[in-house]
């Protein structure tokens, strides 16, 4: 019986072995766990200035080690506070079906590092809004759905997340689904979210959304002056539905101590917000600065030089020490997962590659009472 011999038998064997080897490698790689990230033992934030805070941006950060590294660096900077964004639409993609895997990851790492999380909740899932609307569009007949998610969040993270921020900058048309800002409608949203959150976790503090600092007058299609918006929320009875107020305090090109002026945007506009609160009998309600700071992008007209940014930021933290009504100052923003290719990159304290910028270094020195490396008066 003739034996079949392949003309290139050795080549065939080699190729078969190579193919089997590749298949084996792929199989092994699939079976092996991804880079193992342990949450680790609980840490404590060491700081001389407990109001120092920063807004993280872990929403779109998919790698666990980067979430952990970000939280570690916040702690090492001496910041006990973070603000983080939890998009409702990411976690409830169909009504009543929740996927908590990503927020679990963020909150596990943040709390392990000793950080207090202020959780901003918005982003409307597709099922809760009409077609051809943006993720900022929420009609009144879906306020209950939003409130139900807030309640689910409050219950799941009870004891670990005790501050919830209801929506973001509703005084901007963009943030209100490209509709005119509507303080009365927002008040109703706040009311429903407040009641639902309290029922789920009576200890949770519900914060009214941080408003965009703007001087846009009534009738402007793009926005409404934050001080007017806040007054209209109080007029609509909103004071009853908030335990605290989130405030956005950007300095633009002005130093942190630039005096407040209703016709101007600067860091001390927070004091004007406070005046509205006091005038409405809410002097005992705390403020949390959940966004703020300065930008040093050379292409942006509202930017400052990097050394000015450091000086103004340190000045802002220092100023907040003298504000007994202000609990925390969380500057925008710790780090982006990837370059934004806009001036937003120049708000970051740390590069996407985790290289600390001078502002990070100096805030760390401030928080720990150490001599500055770059900054001098």
């Amino acid at each position, binding site marked *: 019986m003739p034996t079949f011999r392949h003309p290139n038998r050795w080549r065939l064997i080699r190729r078969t072995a190579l193919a089997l080897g590749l298949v084996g490698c792929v199989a092994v790689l699939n079976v092996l766990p991804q880079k193992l990230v342990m949450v680790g033992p609980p840490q404590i934030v060491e700081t001389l200035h407990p109001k120092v805070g920063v807004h993280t941006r872990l929403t779109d950060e998919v790698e666990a080690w980067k979430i952990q590294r970000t939280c570690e660096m916040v702690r090492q900077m001496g910041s006990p506070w973070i603000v983080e964004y939890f998009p409702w639409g990411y976690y409830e993609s169909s009504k009543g079906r929740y996927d908590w895997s990503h927020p679990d990851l963020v909150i596990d790492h943040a709390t392990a590092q000793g950080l207090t999380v202020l959780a901003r909740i918005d982003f409307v899932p597709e099922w809760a809004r009409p077609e051809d609307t943006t993720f900022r569009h929420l009609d009144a007949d879906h306020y209950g759905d939003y409130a139900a998610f807030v309640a689910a969040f409050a219950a799941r993270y009870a004891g670990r997340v005790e501050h919830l921020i209801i929506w973001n900058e509703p005084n901007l048309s963009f943030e209100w689904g490209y509709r005119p800002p509507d303080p009365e409608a927002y008040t109703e949203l706040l009311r429903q979210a407040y009641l639902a959150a309290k029922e789920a976790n009576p200890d949770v503090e519900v914060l009214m959304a941080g408003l965009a600092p703007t001087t846009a007058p009534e009738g402007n299609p793009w926005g409404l002056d934050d001080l007017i918006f806040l007054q209209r929320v109080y007029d609509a009875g909103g004071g009853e539905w908030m335990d605290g107020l989130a405030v956005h305090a950007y300095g633009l090109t002005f130093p942190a101590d630039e005096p407040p002026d209703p016709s101007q945007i600067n860091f001390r506009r927070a004091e004007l917000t406070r005046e509205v609160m006091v005038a409405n009998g809410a002097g005992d309600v705390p403020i949390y600065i959940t966004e703020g700071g300065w930008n040093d992008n050379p292409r942006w007209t509202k930017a400052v030089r*990097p050394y000015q940014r450091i000086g103004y930021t340190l000045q802002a933290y220092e100023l907040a020490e003298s504000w007994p009504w202000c609990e925390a100052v969380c500057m925008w923003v710790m780090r982006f997962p*990837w370059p934004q290719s806009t*001036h937003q990159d120049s708000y970051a304290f740390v590069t996407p590659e985790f290289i600390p910028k001078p502002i990070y270094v100096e805030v760390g020195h401030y928080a720990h009472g150490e001599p500055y490396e770059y900054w001098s008066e």
Partner: protein
Amino acid sequence: MPTANRTNTGLSERIRALPASIRLAPSIAAAVFALFLWLGEPLSELLTGQDPVLARIERSGVMRVGMDANYPPFEWVDAQGQFQGYDVDLARALGEQLGVQVTLVDVHFDGLYDALEAQRCDLIISALPHDPMMTRDLAYSRAYYDAGLVLVGSSGGADIETIEDLAGRSVAVELGSEGHMLARLWERDKGLAIELHVVREPLELVASLQDSIAELLICDSVTARGYLAQDPSLRIVGPMLSSERYVIAAPIEATELIDRVDQALDEWEASGQLGAWEQRWLSERASP
């Protein structure tokens, strides 16, 4: 069969007797024709696969170029209210090439992409860095300028061929700048020990070379061209340290328009026109 009836049947009755598909065919054809006339050129573009952005530009005879006129020497508005700069020359030359007028639309840098999406402009020419995250939504031209980081030296630096050659050298950087961050990245990831001299203002960078405080400085290539124009003893040395490629952007469907832009850029590179604009706006304008 009553023949008389058949012969007396009118045209309308005979038409009614036809199958519905044949009977309605003229009406359908007329409706389609009317729709074609109503939709006009957009439909023909759809049917022929023609680039709708280029078609609109050619139809109107106007190309609207979005730019943030606040970034000299690439684009700004002078005291007389006139647009000036490298990108302005480039936009006008492109209009000539396409045989259309150019309207410059001043948009804040962060609003440029939105302006394109909202069809407030047909193109963006605005020292726009290529963004790999946007390539699914936009059509980009080839790069016409690289504004990445470079090394500038006076007497020193002639022997710099690679980044590793910077080990142990004194290099000035502006606090918190891209150059500063890059040097910190090298230090961490490559173990490169550079003697960094950190200054607060860009002008202090050059002074640190002139005063021999540092041997080299790191800045972007646009700033470097300005320094060289001010001080002929300075020169760019070594390799480019990073890349920031300026490109022209158009809507994703503007494939033909971007092809035409690329052709023009190729021609201008071959003819030396790109170099002439660089010389005019990045060097001569910066010279004392």
